Each structure stands twice: as C-alpha cells, then as structure tokens.
C-alpha cells in the first residue's frame, strides 16, 4: 500500500476545509459583539449566548427535544430487542418482508412521513401533542435501534445460553442474566444512535409539532425562515457543541467507525 503524495494531501486539506467551514463559521459568528451577523474581529463576546436566556421558547424546545429523544429511543429499543432476537434466531415465513418493513422508515422521505402522521394524528385527536411526537419518533428511530441490536443478536453465542439451561436456569434467568447482558452493547449504541437521530430530526417533526410542542431543530428552522440573526447562530453553536461532545463519547465508548459502517454495510 502506497502513502499519500503531496497532491493527495493538498486535496485532503481542501476537503476537510469544505466539510468543516460551515460548521466553524456558525461557531465564530456566535461570538460576535455586534447586533448583526459579522465575524468577531478584535474582540469576542458572549452577549448572544446570554441572549438565549431571554427566549424561553429555545430553552423549553431544548428540554422537549431531549425528553423526546430519550423516551422515543428507549421505547424503540424496547420494541427492537425481541424483534431482533426473533429475526436473528428463527427462519420464519415473512421474515424478510418484516425486516424490510421495520427498516422502511429509512427509505420513505420524511416529508411523506410528516404528512402521513399529520393527517393520522389530526384524525385521532393527537394533532400537535407530545404523545403524537413520541409515537412518530419511535417509528422513525426504530430502524437505527434495530440494526445495532440485530447486529449484536446475530453475533451472540448460543452455547452460553444452552449451558445455563443445562445448569438449571429458568427461561427468565437466562434472559436476564445471559441474553440481555450479551446484547447490551448493541442495545446501548442503538439507543444512542436513535437518540441522535431523534434529536436532529426536523423534516417530519415540522409537520406535526404545534407551537407548544416544537422541538429545538423545528424552533431553529422556523426562526431561520423568518430571519437569520446572531441569536440563532449562538443556539446552533450550543447544539453543535453538545453533538460534538456526544460524538467523542460515542467514539471512545463504541467506535464511530463501527457505529456508522455497521449501519451502512449490513443492509444486505
């Protein structure tokens, strides 16, 4: 295998600049001391970060996003674990079709899902409620939870379970002491990936969130549609900071590479 030449490294530098530029620009502009969009040249200021405190809708949207992500991901994982065990262990009629159904929210444009949920929840009287948001988010993050729990359920060594049974363990004990601990890494990373996807989701949520139930990305999106000012850059900078922190933790704990490549490569 050959090393990268100088030309390749130049290209690499340009590419990394392209990938990071828009993210860094948001973070820089957030520190502007001016009342308009500008780069902080001679001095930096936190005034726009303090300004977030005067807009309670951003704060409440942040907490709502956090709860929504945590709750819907937890429920999605609870649904995925038995489904993943069934798909990993049994060859039954309809297995392929069922897996395709569970993965389908990845394929369906989120605009279509947003419209479908809006119509459905309005008919049910759940329009604009937190309950509706949770149900919708469970459906869209379940594929992420299922993929990672499925990956760990497929790799599970069943002879450990058989050993436990032959030593007299009951079904409940095997599940609690053997099976669940073995799929735990997949379960935790599945939850984390589901959480991030729920926390970032905007396209589908913008259809079903009402003024009292807006999530943070929806609030930011609607704000930007009206006007772009330094306030929304400081909110975005906070979101970026939280995501980067989560990313580093996730990378250390599980390996981003494994998390993302596992997610893209096991589709077949």
């Amino acid at each position, binding site marked *: *295998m050959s090393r*990268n030449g100088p030309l*390749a490294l130049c290209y*690499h530098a340009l*590419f*990394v600049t*392209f*990938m990071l*530029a*828009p*993210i860094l*620009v*948001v973070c820089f*502009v957030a520190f502007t001391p001016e009342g308009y969009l500008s780069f902080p040249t001679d001095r930096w200021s936190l005034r726009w970060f303090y300004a977030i405190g005067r807009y309670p809708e951003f704060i409440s949207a942040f907490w709502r996003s956090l709860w929504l992500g945590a709750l819907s991901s937890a429920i999605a994982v609870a649904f995925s674990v*038995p*489904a993943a*065990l*069934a*798909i990993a*262990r*049994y060859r*039954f009629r309809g*297995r392929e079709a*069922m897996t395709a*159904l569970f993965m389908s929210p990845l*394929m369906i*444009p*989120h*605009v*279509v899902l947003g419209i*479908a949920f*809006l*119509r*459905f929840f309005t008919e049910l009287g759940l329009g604009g409620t937190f309950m509706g948001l949770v149900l*919708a988010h469970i*459906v869209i993050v379940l594929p992420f939870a299922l993929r990672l729990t499925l990956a760990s359920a497929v790799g599970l060594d069943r002879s450990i*379970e058989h050993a436990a*049974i032959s030593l007299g363990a009951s*079904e409940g004990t*095997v599940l609690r002491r053997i*099976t669940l601990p073995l799929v735990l890494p997949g379960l935790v990373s599945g939850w984390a990936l589901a959480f991030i996807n729920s*926390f*970032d989701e*905007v*396209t589908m949520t913008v259809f079903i969130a009402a003024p009292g139930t807006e999530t943070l*990305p929806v609030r*930011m*999106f609607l704000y*930007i*549609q009206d006007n*772009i000012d330094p306030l929304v*850059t400081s909110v*975005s900078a906070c*979101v*970026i900071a939280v*995501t980067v922190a989560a*990313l580093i933790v996730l*990378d250390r704990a599980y390996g*981003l590479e494994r998390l993302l490549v596992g997610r*893209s490569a096991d589709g077949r």
Partner: protein
Amino acid sequence: MSAVADTAPQGAAEERSARAPWALTAPALMLFVGVLLIPLAMTVMLSFHDWGQYKGIEPVFILKNWREIATDLYYAEMFWRTFRIALLTTLITAVLGAPEACILNRMSGRWKSFFLLVILGPLLISVVARTLGWALLFGGNSGLLNKALISMGLISAPLPFMFTETGMVVALAHVLMPYMVLAVWAALQRLDPQVENAAVALGAGPVTVLRRIVLPQVMPGILSGAIIVFALAASAFATPAIIGGRRLKVASTLAYDEFLNTLNWPLGAAVAVLLLLVLVLIVVGASRLVERRYAQVFG
C-alpha cells in the same frame, strides 16, 4: 420467552418455534401497522379527496389533484428541478467523495480514525445548523465564500448562491457527503491492497492502476453511495427550504407549503405520494441493476 424452546419435548418445541418469532415481533409489528402503514394508506387516499377554499377537505374519490399535477407545467418543472438538483448533488459527492475515501484509506491508524471522525461526524450534527453555516457563507452577494473565491482569482464578480439552485446543490453536497465517503470507504475495506501492489510489480503505471484496478473495485461502493445520496437529496427538506427561500421550490418544500400555508392537504398529499413513488422506483431499480452488475462483488 422462547430462547429455550429446544429443551421442551420435540412436538411442543416445533410448535413453539413456529409461534415464537411472531410473538417476539408482534409489538413492533403492531406499532408499524398502526402508526406507519395505516397513516401511509390514509395519505394515498387523501390524495384522491377533493378540496375547496371554503368547504375544506371532502372525502370523495376524484382524480382532480392528480390531473392538476399531470397537466399543470408548474409541477413538471418543479419535479424536474428536484431531480436535477439531486442528480447534480450525487455527481459532486461521487467525484469529490470517492478520492477522499481512498486518501483516508491510505492513512495510518491514528490519523485515519481522527479524520474519519472529522468527515463522518457532521452526519450527526443538526442539518439546520449545517445549512445555517452555508447561509452565512453565501450571505447574499457579498458573502464570505464569494470574497474568498474572488481573492483566489477564481471568479471576477460575486456569484449568486443564496436562493439559487447552485447554492442548494453546494449545501446538499456538503450535508450528504458523509454518506458517500462512508459507502466508498466500506467498499475499500473489502479490498485486498496486495492486488494494487501486484499490478505495480507487473509494471502498471499509476493511471493504469487507478483505471484498471482501483476504480472497478470501488465502483460498487460509489454506486450504493450514489443511490443513498440521490434518494436523500431528492427528498431533502430543511436545506432547500433555507437556501431556496420562499420562491425556489422543490417537491418536499412545495408539499410543506400546500399543507401548512395553502392548507390544500389533498394536493400536498398527491405531490408527496408522487415523490415517494418515483423515488421508490428509482432506488429499487438502481439497486437491482447495481446488484446484478456486481453480483460477484456482493456475493
């Protein structure tokens, strides 16, 4: 739970293992039928309903919305724009992303994982925040990007990026780039680097190695990445909405407008259902082609 089905007497075991998978998947299956399939079916039905400014939605079965989409050139132009943007975005991510994946693959351990984190990480950062970054860089006619391009001597007059298709393509290419790098990188992991060395040892030049060895082996990765990027670009919402503003519409932003501004839900549903149908046809068709062409690689 049926993890222990095989300890039960033979007949009972068979019966249980036939029922067990259904019992285990039942909760998720019920959820998906109730909260995914039924709403989708309702949306398809909605697209056949009638709507009027004052009467609202009328649950009848008519082809009015579909006829409007088929005959009004506005929709043809809008769908053509949507798929043109998606195609350009896909091309750019393939042309720029594939070489970068190869460069990443040649890096040594620590640098490789660091830059993989830098390049794939943005995938998990909010799309709204990333698009906001592009809106700041474009910033009308005097934006930072134009200043940089002019000072490098690449252009003489500022290019319009904001509220244009060019701007949408650039921002979408950035937003979706990680998927392409990821797909090509995953394909590269399956390669044997010794084949490249063997070609060099047999006297092949760098161009020949690239054309005859690397490219054919990376192609399945590029194609599967292209399918993902195309599908996501054609159905993207937040980026076209922010960069395109209120006038330059793509399919998803038009459907949003019909739903939340005009309130013509049946028409919006028809636009969305058409987008879904076209995308499913393209994605399934392209996947079939790729899998048939590269059956030996995937097998």
